[in-house]
């Protein structure tokens, strides 16, 4: 790397990087501090002399207690976890099989099917939520977790397939050819050789799919109606606001606690997540 004088490093590197980190992370700090701030401190106008933005002298667990005692937050957490896990599993199953077929097998229309998958990858959920809500009602799935477990794969499968296609292409073709000569059928070669070798790719796709389903909002908002069926993002939006009144303490506590599971999964598999993210934009 080509480097210059010390002051240049500060001006062109340390200061901008620090600013970036500060701005990108400040809202999370704000979530954290609000969660533990008592109401008395919370509702001080910003121009009041007692406004004390960055610290609290009387940390409290009241908001968190309220969340678990007075709201269905724990149910929402469980719902979100359940839906994200099952829909990720379904999407991985479909995506791995489809990715294998599209990247490794020769069959008519393989190319156009691949393009088709890429195009569905680009279909946003907001394009289809109204007719889909109708379909969910007709299938009698409304207000059940299955309405999400079955529809989340529509945006996760194209992503998983795309990622797995890229990964499978990087596994030498000779491995499965050798397995087939060794006496394995095509299916066995896939199950015993190619899929185990592709585990890092599967993990990347899985982590990424999990965070995407945890983040999903509009389907959950439209398909679920009873408070005890909701996911964290939807529950927080609809149940912690009464008319125009925002319960900021519990809201921020819910935002914090609702983020922790994804953040944990993410922190354990940062490298896989980044591989999934960058793999998803590679052609």
């Amino acid at each position, binding site marked *: 790397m080509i480097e210059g004088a010390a002051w240049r490093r500060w001006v062109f590197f340390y200061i901008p990087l620090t600013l970036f980190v500060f701005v990108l992370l400040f809202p999370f700090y704000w979530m954290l501090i609000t969660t533990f701030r008592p109401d008395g401190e919370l509702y001080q106008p910003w121009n009041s002399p007692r406004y004390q933005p960055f610290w609290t002298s009387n940390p409290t667990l009241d908001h968190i207690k309220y969340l678990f005692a007075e709201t269905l937050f724990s149910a929402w957490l469980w719902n979100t976890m359940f839906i994200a896990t099952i829909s990720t599993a379904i999407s991985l199953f479909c995506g791995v099989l489809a990715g294998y077929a599209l990247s490794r097998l020769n069959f008519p229309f393989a190319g156009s099917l691949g393009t088709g998958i890429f195009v569905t990858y680009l279909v946003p959920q907001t394009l289809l939520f109204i007719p889909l809500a109708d379909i969910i009602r007709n299938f009698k799935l409304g207000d059940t977790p299955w309405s999400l477990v079955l529809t989340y794969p529509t945006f996760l499968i194209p992503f998983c397939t795309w990622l797995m296609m890229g990964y499978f292409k990087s596994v*030498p073709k000779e*491995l499965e*050819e*050798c*397995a*087939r*000569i*060794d*006496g394995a059928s095509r299916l066995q070669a896939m199950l015993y050789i190619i899929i185990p*070798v592709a585990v890092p790719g599967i993990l990347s796709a899985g982590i990424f799919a999990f965070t995407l389903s945890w983040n999903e909002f509009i389907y959950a908002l439209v398909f679920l109606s009873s408070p005890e069926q909701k996911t964290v993002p939807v529950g927080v939006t609809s149940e912690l606001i009464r008319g125009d009144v925002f319960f900021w303490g519990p809201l921020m506590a819910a935002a914090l606690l609702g983020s922790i599971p994804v953040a944990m999964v993410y922190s354990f598999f940062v490298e896989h997540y980044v591989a999934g993210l960058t793999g998803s934009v590679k052609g």
Partner: protein
Amino acid sequence: MAQVVIRNLNKKFDEVHAVKDVNLQINDKEFMVFVGPSGCGKTTTLRMVAGLESITSGEVLINDTVVNELPPMDRDIAMVFQNYALYPHMSVYDNMAFGLKMRKFDKAEIAQRVQEAADILDIGPLLKRKPRQLSGGQRQRVALGRAIVRHPQVFLFDEPLSNLDAKLRVQMRVELKKLHNRLGTTAIYVTHDQVEAMTLGDRVVVMKDGLVQQVGAPLELYNRPANRFVAGFIGSPAMNFLPVTLADTDGSLWAVGPEFRVKPPAAMAGRLRGHTGKAVLLGIRPEDLRVTNGADPADHTFEATVEVTEQLGSEILLDLTAGPAPMVASVEPTVTAKVGDRLRLAFNPDRLHVFDSQTEASI
């Protein structure tokens, strides 16, 4: 008995006709080598025998059974790949046992066979390791081991030594030869390296542009190449080709070049008569040229200028020009020649080759 017969085999990829009407018989216990430049169709042919590539037309028979439609798993063959294709998530033992497990052998027999193969290849201590912990040579041995535990009817090798460094390659070549002598399994071996082809093969198939150029024992290819391509491909350094015209002077036949003329031996004259007055290619191997000691008849000598000398220790390679024609001579290390010297070279008339300049076939 394991005999492989290939009949009128053709392979077409969309635009490319990769393999054209190949006919071959590979006998039981034979070590057959396919050699040729890249893209000549040798690997495609091998992959059709393996069942990894569909057959456009023609037939492959293993032991008198047409196997065209048989998937690779049912052909009872083993294959060693250029990149070894070791299963990275399995230990050496599991790599070798995989084929047996797929065929539902019982545990004890698997263990016994793997141990046997490991002893033969001297990889016993490596059985618990993963492929990534092995050196190139060790991986090569494991790949071989995986092939031999199965006791298949036919071994297929796809450039198995290309990824090894030069020294290891020579060593493994010898071991492969020993292994074949010991097991006696029919083998088909694909390589682009003519030295490997010559040293390993009982017979060698030379291919170019999807066509078989010549099939024969290594020395047969060396001594009696069927055409200019085989002559130039087999042997190192490659054969020299001098464009000449055949002329009848005073009742004897001369090959006349731009600045020299030589007399083909009487034994060849009969065959060459028909080409009198036509342009042909004279083929002389570098090792059949020497600096004359004056005793050679003038008909078999000509003058050339030294351009470059390459000292190899055991011999000297001289890059020369005789008129416009470049050539290489491999001469005794005692010869002292400097760049720019004019030398009189003699060739061995019994080892002269002549090729038709149009068809490139040997005359």
